[in-house]
């Protein structure tokens, strides 16, 4: 436990990665749905503001955001392979048997059949689902997006029906991802009573003790244990 009650959640590197992801994701959502709902009021407004070439601008921005997201994802891949903290991240995000019991306990807790919350570690099943959904989504959206972007290259390969499938998948996955972020991620970082009004870790990098106690008690315990060991060691040394 640090004296200020701050527990490192995201390093600066990770915060930059997260920021690239969030900004490109939001951009992609806006510019993507603007294509699908061209008559929506906010699309009309933006067309009005941007002017005659709004549609082309929309396409270019969507592709830039896609490139940023894919580039960020590739960097992330390198990060999780080649850095110690990255490898630990994947290890901590991996699914274990405890996640199933945690899920069960959590469901029992929220429906009132259990008094205690599960004893979550650094990443709960909620966050793990979140992470892997992003991985899955990025691969699907990136893949289908590339097909649509370079349609004249892919058409001879996947044919018109393949193109139609790519279009459909890109569309459904977009809905799924957007709603998932909205319902799942935004709930846990904004509405969630433990962190409300907002979990500031995405830009401070730290969680408070209160948040740690509620959200990541096992991690907190581990940290404190570790610190205790260290203090013991150092005190032993000093002694």
């Amino acid at each position: 436990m640090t004296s200020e009650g701050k527990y490192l959640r995201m390093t600066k590197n990770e915060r930059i990665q997260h920021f690239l992801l969030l900004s490109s994701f939001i951009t992609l959502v806006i510019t993507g749905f603007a294509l699908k709902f061209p008559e929506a009021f906010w699309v009309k407004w933006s067309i009005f503001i941007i002017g005659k070439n709004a549609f082309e601008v929309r396409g270019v921005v969507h592709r830039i955001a896609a490139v940023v997201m894919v580039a960020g994802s590739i960097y992330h891949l390198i990060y999780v392979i080649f850095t110690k903290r990255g490898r630990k991240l994947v290890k901590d995000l991996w699914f274990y048997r405890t996640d199933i019991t945690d899920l069960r306990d959590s469901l029992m807790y929220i429906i009132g059949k259990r008094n205690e919350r599960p004893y979550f570690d650094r990443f709960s099943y909620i966050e793990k689902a979140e992470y892997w959904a992003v991985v899955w989504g990025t691969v699907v959206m990136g893949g289908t997006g590339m097909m649509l972007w370079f349609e004249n290259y892919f058409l001879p390969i996947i044919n018109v029906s393949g193109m139609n499938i790519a279009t459909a998948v890109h569309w459904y996955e977009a809905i799924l991802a957007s709603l998932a972020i909205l319902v799942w991620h935004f709930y846990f970082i904004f509405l969630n009573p433990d962190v409300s009004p907002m979990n500031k870790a995405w830009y401070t990098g730290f969680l408070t003790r209160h948040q740690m106690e509620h959200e990541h008690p096992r991690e907190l315990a581990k940290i404190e244990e570790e610190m205790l060991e260290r203090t013991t060691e150092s005190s032993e040394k000093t002694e």
Partner: protein
Amino acid sequence: MMTARRKFVLIAATITFLITIVVLVSNTKFLRATGTDDCFACHEDKSLTADRNGKKISLYIDPALYKKSTHGDMDCKDCHEGYKPEEMPHNPNKKKIDCKSCHDNVKPLENSVHKNKECYSCHNPHTQKPIKELKANNTSLCLDCHKNKNVKDFTTSIHYKKNIGCDGCHKGGHEVQKINKGDIQNVCGKCHGSNQKDFNNSIHHTVLSKGNQNAPNCVSCHGSHKINNSKMTIESEACLKCHLDEKLFPGDEKGSAKFVAHYKTSIHSSIQKDGKPAAGCVDCHGDHTIEKLTDPKESTVKARMINTCGKCHADEVSKFNNSNHGKAFNSGNKEAPSCFDCHGEHDIKSVLQSDEFSKINQADICLKCHSNNKVTQGKDNHTEDYKSSFHYLALKDGNTAAATCSNCHGAHDMKSAGDPTSNINKKNVDKTCGQSGCHTKELSEYTGSVHEVSLMTKENSDAPNCVGCHGNHQIKSTDSLGNAEGSRQRGIIKLCSSCHASVKIINNNNLKNVAGTYLESFHGLAVRGGSTQAADCGSCHGNHNIRTSSDTLSSINKRNLGKTCGKCHPGASEVFINSRIHTLITDEDNPMLLWISRIYILLIIATIGGMTLHNILDYRRKMKDKKAGKES
């Protein structure tokens, strides 16, 4: 005592004397007879002249003519009573020759204008011919004295040529008269009875009989002595003499001199036909029968106008009679136009020269009636739109090939669209727009298109002709297509969708909902979003030459699909050949797509539903805990 010889001499002398006496007596008669010869001794000299009141007059008398004359066997002295041949002058007492001493039964001259003239003013006693001959030649006799030009020109007149002499009008012989102005029509009417009758019913006569000195009679128009074939004399000048006089016809109303003066600028006046104006006043207004302009019998009243114009313009009038205008007019519609409602009256111009009939101004003539639904009773709201049309704007910019009203509707033969022979009938519109000099290329493209074939072969087809897509009066340039929509593509899509997204039309014609599938495709979404590059309907289907995919000439025929798609998707062109383009995600002919869609939808509902439920419960529970924590 006389001897026998002396006796013989005495007897012989007596006989001789007696013979001499007899001869003398008989010679006296001879002498009298040869008295004429004595006169001719001098008067057969052609150069014999005398001064009479300062004038040199000929005293020559042709003896041959005299002998032949009715007085030929009379002695000079029978008339020249008391003349003394040996004295100069022969007639010192100036005793007048009294014809009446013989001709005591001639009609008196008292009633004639010649009452103060001597008999021999007309009847030359020395050459006097039988009265019959005299009658036959009366004109030349009159002209001996009546030498003023007007009268002299009588010999060039039609009357003279037809052997009608002075006596024809002025009465002959001893009753020769001047003709009073008021009597002229009666005099003329003796021969020209029917014309007189017409004239007596005319406005001219009405005014004349009211005592208007300016009103014309026969000679006012026809002239008097120099009268000629009516057409030759009655040129418009005769009418215009009076009708251009602003004192006689003041103001600028119909009928005024100013109004009539426009005739001078008209095509009727300015072009010539057989050396005369193409149409003079009488050609339209009639001649003797001329009536007040408002009189229903007048030949230029609206109701009779078409007959009057039709005298020369028969083709146009027969076309007009078959036109909508003509039908309405002939059925008594007071609003329907007659000739002059469009062409004007006295100022009528050739449509080729007239400024009013120039293409740019022609619409104004039509719009006099066809605006604000004045006459069309709400059937046509678009006529005024013409002024905003590309056709009109092009004309304004000086493109004289652009269409004005009559180019599409016809002029005299304009008919409503419902008429199968109308230029603007649904089945004829393409030929009208594609007429030579206009949209011939587009017509050739359109001909054979699915729209054209359907329109021409099916009754009540919904298929569009030119105006079906381009509109009619308010037709815009294709460049401006979609101006209101934001892009040309959107304009086209809206246009095609007006039929291809109409449930009624789709059902009636067994069409597919191509608009719906297009609008959900990337092409459609892009265009809806304002893209100016994505394909619209025309990019693939063409515009005028749209054909069904089974037609080998179609741009979407399998054979041509590669080329059509290849315009935008080079290299990818081959893959389109066996692909359906207008598909929806839910289309069952792509089962893989269908199943992926179903799975995704299920996934979305399950995942997001589960997440939502989870979070609602989570929130409730955490809030409950929080509250409990505070309480405790």
